[in-house]
């Protein structure tokens, strides 16, 4: 039998049994629809978490040093890190290691009392080196950021995060005003452009930034750093640089071979890779759910096809009588199952697209259809139709035409 004739035949037969066809499509529609939907959502949330991750650490060509062995839980601050990472360590890394482009230093503390006139509040205070802004990709939305000169002059100037500005200066221009951080007066010099949410979903705008020299000498009186961001000349040489920094710091800290590092180095790229991997595990699970739905859809197809075959014994007998071979009958029924399954798949994709459109509008998520998913959907639909249609088709092909014609 000819391919086109077979497909036309299947179409006609499908058109004659609309309700049953719809039922057969349903499972595949649900399976493919959820696969498409879940995948698009998973893809979007992966993008979103990468974006948030980048919000927190700024660039990807950096590695992060923190004092103390092992991982510090949560964000570092002067109260929860040991004083093992000194300003001189940063200096030594910058001058001795040729792979390092620049280093930004941080000395920070949380819940510091701040005051403007009679507005009392508290926030995080970040003493940072001026290149911190550049490394983080931060900019001022109003006023200016502080300079190297101001840092070495120990100038008492402050850059406010957007949240602090709105709390301390509601409806008022903050630039040029004097606020108190602890007991020390600072002049507001700039407002930081809003950075949005961090990976935990919390705001990244609830802070005040001051020059790190000022922070160390005039506010906190500590000689150690809470974090060091090392920007590399070559982002791909992260591993070699991590090793070089480790060796240098161990030497400077006089650590013997048996002692553990008294600092921790994190490579954001490695973390980002982990985030992506975590998401792909999620995606795999979701795919598993969709495949389960497809399996159920396939079982429905098989059951209804089997019923159809026994109802259509006479038709099968007539076709065999006028010259259809077993192969022709097998092909006819397999084609029918596959076409129905494909139709179900397309309906699923269409419904998912509608759902995505609505979700994109409601949740303002940047949703997009992955073309891979479309390909996988079609392949899965065809496979489901063939796998679950082949047994009924085989049954149909092996109906005895003589008995079927006599009935």
């Amino acid at each position, binding site marked *: 039998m000819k391919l086109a004739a077979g497909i036309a035949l299947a179409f006609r037969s499908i058109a004659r049994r609309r309700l049953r066809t719809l039922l057969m499509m349903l499972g595949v529609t649900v399976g493919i629809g959820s696969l498409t939907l879940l995948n698009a959502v998973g893809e979007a949330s992966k993008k979103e978490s990468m974006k948030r991750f980048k919000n927190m650490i700024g660039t990807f060509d950096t590695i992060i040093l923190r004092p103390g062995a092992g991982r510090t839980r949560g964000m570092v601050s002067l109260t929860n890190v040991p004083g093992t990472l000194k300003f001189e360590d940063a200096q030594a890394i910058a001058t001795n290691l040729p792979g390092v482009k620049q280093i930004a230093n941080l000395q920070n503390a949380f819940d510091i009392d701040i005051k403007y006139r009679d507005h009392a509040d508290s926030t995080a205070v970040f003493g940072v080196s001026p290149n911190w802004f550049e490394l983080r990709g931060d900019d001022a939305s109003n006023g200016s950021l502080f300079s190297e000169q101001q840092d070495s002059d120990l100038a008492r100037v402050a850059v406010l995060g957007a949240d602090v500005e709105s709390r301390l200066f509601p409806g008022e221009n903050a630039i040029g005003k004097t606020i108190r951080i602890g007991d020390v007066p600072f002049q507001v010099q700039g407002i930081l452009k809003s950075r949005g949410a961090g990976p935990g979903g919390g705001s990244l705008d609830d802070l005040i930034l001051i020059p790190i020299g000022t922070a160390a000498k005039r506010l906190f009186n500590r000689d150690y750093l809470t974090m060091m961001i090392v920007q590399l000349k070559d982002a791909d040489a992260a591993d070699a640089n991590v090793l070089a920094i480790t060796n240098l710091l161990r030497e400077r800290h006089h650590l013997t071979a048996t002692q553990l590092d008294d600092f921790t180095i994190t490579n954001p790229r490695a973390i980002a890779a982990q985030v992506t991997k975590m998401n792909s595990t999620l995606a795999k699970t979701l795919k598993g759910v969709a495949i389960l739905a497809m399996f159920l859809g396939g079982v429905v197809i098989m059951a209804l096809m089997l019923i159809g075959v026994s109802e259509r014994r006479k038709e099968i007998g*007539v076709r065999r*009588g*006028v*010259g*259809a*071979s077993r192969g022709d009958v097998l092909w006819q029924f397999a084609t029918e199952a596959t076409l129905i399954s494909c139709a179900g798949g397309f309906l699923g994709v269409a419904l998912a697209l509608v759902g995505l459109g609505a979700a994109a509008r409601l949740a303002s998520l940047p949703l997009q259809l992955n073309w891979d998913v479309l390909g996988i959907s079609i392949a899965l639909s065809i496979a489901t139709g063939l796998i679950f249609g082949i047994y009924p088709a085989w049954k149909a092909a092996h109906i005895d035409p003589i008995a079927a014609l006599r009935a």
Partner: protein
Amino acid sequence: MIEMSRISKTYTRGGGSVVHALREISFTVEDREFVAVRGASGSGKSTLLNILGCLDVPNSGAYLLANEDVSRHSDRNLSRVRAERIGFIFQSFNLLPGTTARENVELPMVYARGRVHRKKALELLERVGLQDRANHFANELSGGQQQRVAIARALVNDPPLILADEPTGNLDSTSSGEVMDILTQLHKEGRTIVLVTHDNAVASYAHREVTLHDGILLSDVRITPNEIAPANCEAAS
């Protein structure tokens, strides 16, 4: 046309008992013969027709159809023979439900070589006097009309051999007459016809009568001379 030698066919019943439907039957049909096969039910005549029609294969013996041994053919090849060289007419018409008369006639073309020619189907419907019923569904036609559609279907691939299994068994006498007239005409055109029937009147259209009993050939009688004998057929056409 047909040469059967020592054809046997046995079936195993549900209980395990073996039924000998045909016992070493040898049987020859010349080109352009019109043969009636008679016999009580269970005599093996339906089995004979099924083997003749390549719907069934014998357990032993050889079946030569136009000098080609089809008794050992594969399913695919047997199907090809059914599609292109044999036209089947059944007692219960066996039109596809929910399908128009024209589509029923076109059906064998789907399974034969070459394209599906709608025109040919319409021509054949006209030939059996049903040109105005082409788009009617099978269940909208009377029994006689359905059988005529079935005849058109049997002819659509222009097979030399027509096999009819009680073609008038479900018809009234008028419709029976129409159907037998068409068969007679087909015979006159030079087709070979093998007809299974109980009915004396129907059998009388044939010029040769073969009677089966218990799976063996009881008698083989030439009733009337075959006017469409191979020799003078050329002259007639």
